[in-house]
């Protein structure tokens, strides 16, 4: 599922990344003017707020199931109705944001780190290290993200008393292990494009340490496309988390998650579709917000599209 991004990101974009600082300033200037950017930032702001202080939005306890009031249609007490367990759907949906946001942000960050390090090392040092890293990248690239996720989560299931952060951390881990390859490939090619430039050669000739060259000359120029992809990946990771939870092997109770809620609602889809509707809506909105952000950031960094 991470494939779309690599291809969606125009491969030629890096050609113009010669003067990093001015580019990022440029990007910021164009971002500020983009309505899409502000809409997405607004939406993300709301979701992040939900993740941090869900009680701002609802006073209802999401874990209180009233067995005598199940599958109620939306009403004044329960705005979104209640589900098969008698939980308040509105409260569940608000609390469900936390898992998705944490997984999305954390997994994007970890893949950026892991993919970035491997890509830079492979591109910078070349030789056998490049060959080795490239093959390893190929191997992980050949295992589809969802498939790897399913196998991994089935192999290392959650125990009876796993706490919330272990459960969420495991999903982040699996997304990292099977999701870093796009970034690594991108980083490597960016580095290869930057490396032959005169200023890098000059820095080398002057005896700068490899770390210094990477830090001050390679990274600023190669990082932009990776950040764009990582932003777009945010939405993808949220979807994959929801999918794994939907299949029953991603997040497990006590974690409240949109994917779990959707999967639970399926059984009543013929009779009480509203149970399915609300978590689906919120999940889609969250993904939409991050995709909008990704689009806006990409457009900002890609002068051609302007």
């Amino acid at each position, binding site marked *: 599922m991470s494939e779309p991004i690599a291809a969606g990101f125009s491969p030629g974009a890096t050609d113009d990344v010669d003067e990093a600082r001015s580019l990022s300033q440029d990007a910021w200037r164009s971002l500020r003017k983009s309505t899409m950017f502000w809409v997405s930032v607004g939406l993300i702001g709301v979701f992040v707020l939900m993740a941090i202080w869900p009680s701002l939005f609802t006073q209802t306890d999401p874990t209180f199931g009233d067995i005598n009031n199940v599958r109620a249609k939306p009403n004044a007490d329960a705005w979104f109705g209640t589900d*098969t*367990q008698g939980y308040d759907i509105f409260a569940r949906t608000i609390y469900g944001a936390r898992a998705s946001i944490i997984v999305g942000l954390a997994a994007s960050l970890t893949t950026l780190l892991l993919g970035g390090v491997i890509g830079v090392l492979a591109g910078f040092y070349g030789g056998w290290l490049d060959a080795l890293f490239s093959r390893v990248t190929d191997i992980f690239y050949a295992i589809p993200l969802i498939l790897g996720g399913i196998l991994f989560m089935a192999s290392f299931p959650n125990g009876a008393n796993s706490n919330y952060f272990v459960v969420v951390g495991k999903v982040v881990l699996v997304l990292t292990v099977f999701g870093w390859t796009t970034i690594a490939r991108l980083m490597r090619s960016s580095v290869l494009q930057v490396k032959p430039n005169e200023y890098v050669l000059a820095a080398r000739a002057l005896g700068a340490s490899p770390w210094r060259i990477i830090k001050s000359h390679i990274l600023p120029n190669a990082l932009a496309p990776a950040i764009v992809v990582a932003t777009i990946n945010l939405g993808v990771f949220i979807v994959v988390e929801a999918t794994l939870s939907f299949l*029953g092997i991603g997040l497990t109770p006590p974690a409240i998650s949109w994917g779990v809620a959707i999967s639970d609602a399926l*059984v009543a889809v013929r009779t009480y579709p509203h149970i399915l509707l609300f978590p689906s809506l919120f999940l889609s909105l969250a993904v939409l917000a991050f995709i909008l952000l990704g689009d806006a950031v990409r457009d900002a960094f890609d002068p051609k599209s302007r």
Partner: protein
Amino acid sequence: MRGTTRTVAVAGISAAALLLAGCGGGGNEDNGDTTTGTAAKTGGAITVRGCNPENPLVAGNTSETCGGNVLDIVTAKLVEYNVETAAPENDIAESIETTDNQTFTVKLKKDYKFHDGTVVKAKNFVDAWNYTAYGPNAQQGSYFFEPIEGYADLQSEDPDGAEGPVKAPEPKAKEMTGLKVVDDTTFTIKTAEKVSNLPVRLGYTAFAPQPDAFFADPKTFGDKPIGAGPYKLDAWTKNAEIKLTKFADYSGKTKGNLDTITFKIYQDSNAAYADVQANQLDVTDEVPASAQIDEKYKTDLPDRNLQKPVGVIQTITTAPAKVDPNYGPEIRKAISMAINREAIIKAIFNGTREPATGWVSPVVDGYKADVCGEFCKFDPAKAKEQLAKAGGFKGGKMTLSYNADASHKEWTEATCNSIKQALGVDCVATPVVDFSTFRTQIGEGKMKGMFRTGWQMDYPSIENFLAPLYGTGASSNDSEYSNPDFDAKLKEAAAATDAAESNKLYQEAEAIIAKDMVTIPLWYSTTTMGWSDKVTNVKVTPFGVPDYASISLK
């Protein structure tokens, strides 16, 4: 999938014929179907829902429904169970006699034939039973023969466990001393201890006779089994279908109406149900949860559905004290009183369960209502009081584990909510990835807290709901309950020659279970079926299996 894998496959093909006065299968007699009063048509072909057998189809090696349902009508046993009452009735047996509950003389009817034309003789039983019981043959039905004298000599202990390099030594004997062939139509069974309900057990598939062809090549036999039942297996296309045709030389009384019954293999009950709705499948024995909400199936399949109680009970078992000391008998009573069975059944199961009031299913002979008493009635105030009296819960939070590959999530969560709200102790329904992992954790003593258990009867007897589950060291005693009083009662009941007396003693044993609240009874199951508008006379056995032989075309 796994979730539907039942305790044991079930025996007892139907006996529509028992209701009907001597149905000859000619098609002219009244078939006894009181609801419609129409004569059952004979002939024709139907398709029914099937699933992938877990093992080759060998009667002694099948203990799950997917294979068991098929073997049921392919094999004939000494006795069969009445489709309505579950009472055992002689099938191949002419008579089974005993005076002391320990030595049984079995006389066979002379005219039964296997599908390959050979006659069913006493040695077909004895050889088949010895084969199944013999340890190195690794047959799953082996434990059924445990009561027979000499069983232990057919087993051998692997000195370094199943994974060790040393192979288990050869057992002392190949034949049980308790089985003796007298002549072609007579044999005797001697049990190691008194067993009052042995004849009831003999209707289970593991007790089916095997033809000589089986012993010649047991390996390939399982792909095309030969039995003495009303239908013979024609072709088994793996993963697709199992086709059965009527056996012309069948001489029992449960002759089938249809010429062909094809088990179409489904992975998923939703798909089978949709096919029944579209008239592409004739009978499904599973109505998915999605169609049970608000009894949707009754409008989906008007007059083409049926619901019936079956011999299944769902319970909550707690880990043995050595694994998790926080769930003593008094705590269990508090938990039991904190579960709002009625509301959960209504909300989650749409009324398709019956709140349990004891540990024995109402469908069997010997059932006694309300053994559990007030401890199985929902009463949050009393539950809290009981918990305080028991010294409170010391384990922090309670867990109720279930296997996540079947639909247990909803009711475990609702049950936990009920406990949480009544007792004020946090309770979390905890999924275990699948059935195999779930069972392994229980077996290895790694499962803490509460976990779900279900029991599907092997044969319709009160004994089957007690001895295998709560007897010391019994095969399915997950709570590792051990009480000499209880064991003594079981022994006493097994020795009683009078059925009523025996049942009474078993009921006393059940009362001991109640006193110790060994497991927490939840509810008795019903089964729901649906069929296409092509067929009629669909009945369900107390085992929850369609009575295939009595189904007919409209």
